[in-house]
């Protein structure tokens, strides 16, 4: 039997994650890799929402904020293990997404964009203003996950950077697997159908409101887990994780890499996490060049990096 597209994608991603460290000039790159994977997880959720279902959100960092602060607060206030706090954050984010998604997802296009934007701003305001609980704009320490020492006790000794590289890499791969499963499943087809024609999707029996809501909840859980991982990895978190800029960054990575494609969005996350690092040698021109590259890619590769490259390869091959 031929290898399916899904398995091929997963194998390529897994090989890249596993082999990349062989080319790292220094240990610092484990951290860059982990940041890429944390972003990769969040953008995979956005592929489900924007790429599959065709619904925009400019407030998904709000869910990352819920996930991050669940890990920061639940161990202290509820005595939960940080791993369980991560789950609690995911459930909370899913629940909030379900509640606000019902009224919000009736909106379309820029109306939906503004409504989700409002949600993101709301979350970051609460996190910044409830200083007694959250530590306010100065941020807050996060408890140690404790998994690394558990691994060390069974003979798997990893440096902190290596551990987080592996943990976030595996999380991102699991996230990609789930999103790729969805893509080719009955629910995924229905989502992509309503993206292309809502009226036709309805007439074949798709419950459009319910499916949009599912996509919104799923993507919120992805963002939440990404925020949790970031908090646990950094052992420190500020309300910026829920901020407007982070929301925009995530959408930009998704669209830049290829909004309908899981590996595309991950490539987008990798490129836009790496580029600023690589461009620091340009000093004051860094942002100028970064902006220019983004504009040129979107002008000449309007489907995003990966889908455009694939199309060109196929066209020639």
């Amino acid at each position, binding site marked *: 039997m031929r290898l399916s597209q899904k398995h091929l994608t997963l194998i390529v991603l897994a090989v890249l994650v596993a082999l990349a460290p062989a080319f790292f000039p220094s240990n610092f790159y484990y951290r860059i890799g982990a940041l890429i994977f944390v972003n990769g997880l969040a953008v995979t959720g956005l592929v489900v929402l924007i790429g599959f279902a065709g619904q925009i959100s400019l407030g998904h960092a709000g869910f990352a904020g819920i996930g991050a602060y669940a890990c920061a607060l639940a161990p202290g206030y509820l005595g939960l293990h940080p791993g369980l706090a991560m789950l609690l954050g995911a459930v909370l984010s899913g629940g909030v997404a379900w509640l606000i998604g019902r009224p919000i997802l009736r909106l379309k296009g820029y109306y939906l964009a503004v409504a989700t934007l409002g949600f993101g701003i709301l979350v970051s305001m609460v996190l910044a203003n409830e200083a007694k609980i959250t530590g306010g704009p100065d941020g807050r320490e996060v408890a140690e996950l404790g998994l690394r020492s558990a691994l060390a006790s069974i003979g798997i000794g990893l440096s902190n950077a290596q551990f987080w590289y592996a943990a976030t890499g595996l999380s991102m791969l699991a996230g990609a697997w789930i999103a790729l499963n*969805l893509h080719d499943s009955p629910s*995924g*087809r229905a989502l*992509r159908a309503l*993206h292309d024609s809502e009226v036709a999707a309805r*007439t*074949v*029996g*798709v419950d459009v409101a319910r499916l949009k809501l599912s996509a919104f909840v799923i993507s919120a859980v992805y963002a939440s887990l990404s925020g949790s991982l970031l908090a646990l990895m950094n052992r420190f978190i500020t309300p910026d994780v829920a901020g407007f800029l982070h929301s925009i960054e995530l959408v930009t990575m998704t669209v830049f890499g290829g909004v309908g494609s899981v590996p595309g969005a991950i490539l987008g996350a990798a490129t836009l996490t790496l580029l600023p690092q690589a461009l620091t040698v340009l000093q004051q021109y860094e942002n100028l060049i970064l902006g220019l590259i983004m504009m040129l890619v979107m002008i000449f590769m309007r489907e995003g990096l990966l889908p455009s490259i694939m199309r060109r390869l196929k066209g020639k091959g």
Partner: protein
Amino acid sequence: MTLLSVDGLGIDFGGLTAVNDVGFSVSPGEIVSVIGPNGAGKTTLFNMISGVYQPQRGKVILDGADVTGLAPNRLAERGLSRTFQNLQIFQRMSVLENAMTGCHLRERGPVLSDLLSLPSSRRRSAVTRARATELLERVGLARASEREASSLSYGALKRLEIARALALEPRILLLDEPAAGCNAVETEEIDHLIAEVAKSGVAILLVEHDMKMVMRISRHIVVLDRGEKIAEGAPAAVSRDPKVIEAYLGTQSVEAGDAVG
């Protein structure tokens, strides 16, 4: 034995009465055509019956139940399926996936099992794939099944919509100009397909400008003009009706046989 009946159906858009007081009925296995000049209100009538528009007046009765104003997906659950005059294809999906989406009601299941690709989810997809492949063969698109839908010709897309609509295994099928933009051979194929589907017991409501086709396959014809029903009856009687001929005057004669408009 009536499957679908509409009674006194009407809707206005601003000051314009697009459809007014239209009524008729369709039985299983019967082909009823709705004809009329451009802008007569045929598509609007379909949109009201299929739940895309909310009727402002009148009733739609499906299998004895009042379904007026039900959402399209609810009507689909009750066995009503349709195609669109102005193509509503899922452009970014493959031809096969378009047909598979027509099986949504049969293949849908818990989202969680789809996310984890549980055996039940894969089984549902596999059944759908087989069924959609059969349907594509039936409309002559089997060889294009892996292509992106947007790459098909207009005539092929028309047939793809029919395949998708048939995938619901409907009890009543609404076809809005299925042969528009198709060449003579394609039109004949569609003609056969419709007759065959009707023979299997599906009630068919057809809007078509190709009068040859309408006269040949319809059991009953409803004529609309400016939103009102001006005549109805057997094809032979309708084509001789002076009111019908007058409605078409200035455009083309009903018996001329070619597409009007």
